[in-house]
C-alpha cells in the first residue's frame, strides 16, 4: 500500500472516524462528501462503536502475496451496535470456529506489510468478543 494512501485513510482506519449526516442522520464510513440518502453535504464527526455481530464471512485459503503467512483466514462483514456495517479480517480465531452471529470486537492490528522493506499498514480487525 502506498504511504500516501495510508496517510489519507488513517482517520477511519486507525480510529474509526465516520460522518453522520446533519440532515437525515445517516452514518457513512468511510467519510463522504455527499450523503448517499439525502444528498446533504454537511456531516458531524462520530466514532464508531467497537463491538458488533458478524453477519457473514468468507474463508481465504489462497491469499494474495502480502497475506500468505496468515492463510487460511476469514474476511467478514459485521454490523456494529449503531447499525453501521463494515468489512474486515477476522483475527485471533481458527477459521472453523467462526460462526455467523458471533459477537466481535474491533482491535487495532497490523493489516498488511509491504515486503521486508516497505511501509507498515495498520487498521482495524474483528476478533471474537470474549469479555
Amino acid at each position, binding site marked *: 500500500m502506498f504511504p500516501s494512501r495510508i496517510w489519507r485513510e*488513517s482517520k477511519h482506519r*486507525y*480510529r474509526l472516524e465516520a460522518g453522520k449526516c446533519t440532515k437525515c442522520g445517516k452514518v457513512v464510513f468511510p467519510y463522504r462528501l455527499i450523503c448517499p440518502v439525502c444528498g446533504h453535504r454537511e456531516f458531524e464527526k462520530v466514532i464508531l462503536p467497537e463491538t458488533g455481530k458478524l453477519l457473514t464471512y468468507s474463508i481465504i485459503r489462497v491469499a494474495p502475496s502480502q497475506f500468505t*503467512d*496468515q492463510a487460511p483466514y476469514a474476511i467478514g462483514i459485521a454490523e456494529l451496535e449503531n447499525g453501521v456495517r463494515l468489512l474486515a479480517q477476522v*483475527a*485471533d480465531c481458527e477459521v472453523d470456529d467462526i460462526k455467523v452471529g458471533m459477537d466481535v470486537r474491533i*482491535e*487495532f*492490528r*497490523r*493489516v498488511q506489510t509491504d*515486503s*521486508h522493506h516497505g511501509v*507498515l499498514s*495498520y487498521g482495524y*480487525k474483528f476478533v471474537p468478543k*470474549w*469479555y
Partner: protein
Amino acid sequence: MVGIVGYGAHLPRHRIKVEEIAKTWGADAPSYKKGLMLKEKSVPPPDTDTITLSVEATKNALRRAGKLDPADIGAVYIGSESHPYAVKPSGTVVAEAIGAVPDIHCADYEFACKAGSEAMFVCLGLVKSGYIKYGLAIGADTSQGAPSDALEYSAAAGAAAFIMGGENVIAEALHTYSYMTDTPDFWRREYEFYPQHGGRFTGEPAYFKHTLGAARGIMERAGATAKDITYAVFHQPNGKFPLRAGKTLGFSKEQIEPGLLSPTLGNTYSGASPIGLTSILDVAKPGDTIMMVSYGSGAGSDAFIWKVTERINEVRDSAVRTRKLLDENLTYIDYGTYAKFRHKIRKNE
C-alpha cells in the same frame, strides 16, 4: 497531586509452553521450569507488534481515565526494544489512533527493558512541571530471543499504558529514584536480529545490583521498610529473579505475587514491571502503597512508590483486568507456528 489517572494492559492470546521449546532443541524442560520458574510465555501473532499492543493498552487506559479528552494529552512516549521501524516513530501511530494529534510531543525510548519506566518518569516530570496536562507513557515489546538460547524460553510480548496527570489521580507518585551504571550485560548491535547476553553476568552485577540499588535508594528516601509498603513489583526476566530480589529486601511472597506475571507470561521486556503494576492496581485498595522497580540492561533501574487513591474503586472495572488477559481465552501453539509467527524461518520474498 501528580500520578496515574488511567492505566491499562494488553497481551496477545497465543502461548507456547516451555516443554514445546525444549523438545525442539533437545533441552531439559524441567530444569528450565525449575531453574527460571517459567511455565509458558506469550507469543505475538504476525499482525501484532509493539504499536498495536500499545494502542490497545492505551485504549484500556483511556477507559479508566473517565472523560479525559485525548486531545489534552501533551506527550506520548513509548519505551520498547522492538519498535517496528528502525527509522520512524511508533508514537505517531499511537497518537493518531487515539486522536491525540497534532498538539503533542512524541518520542520513542530505548533502554533495554526499562524503556517503559523511562517514559513514565518523564511524563510525571512534565506533568509536575506544568508543561503538559496529561502524558501518555507506554512500555511495550515483542521481544526477540535467539533460537535455542536461554532467552527463547522467556522473550514474550505485552504492553502497559499509563496516563499521567494532576486531576482524578488513581495512584499518586510519592517518590521516584533512578540508579544507573555502565554494565554491558545484554546488547544487540545494529543489523543483528537477536540480542546477545553475558550469561550468568546478567545476574549479580547487573539485575540484582541495579534492582536492589534502586529499591534501597527509594526506600531510604521514603524512610520506608518493606513492612511499610503494601505491594512490590520488580522487573521480571523470569520467575526467580524478582522473588529473590523481593526476599532480599524483606518483602513476603504475598506482597510480590499480585504483580508477578512472568511464570506464565514470560519476559515482556519494557512491558514487564509496568504490566505487573497494572495487575497490582487491579486488586489494590485505597491507601495501599506500591513500589515498582524496573531494570534495563546496560544497565539501570527506575523506582517509583505509588499511593492508591479512592478513585481506584470507581475506575478499576472500566477496562479488562490484566489477570484475565493472562489466564483466559488462550491458544497454545507448537514450535513450528511459533517460528512462523516470529519470522524465524527465512523465506524468499
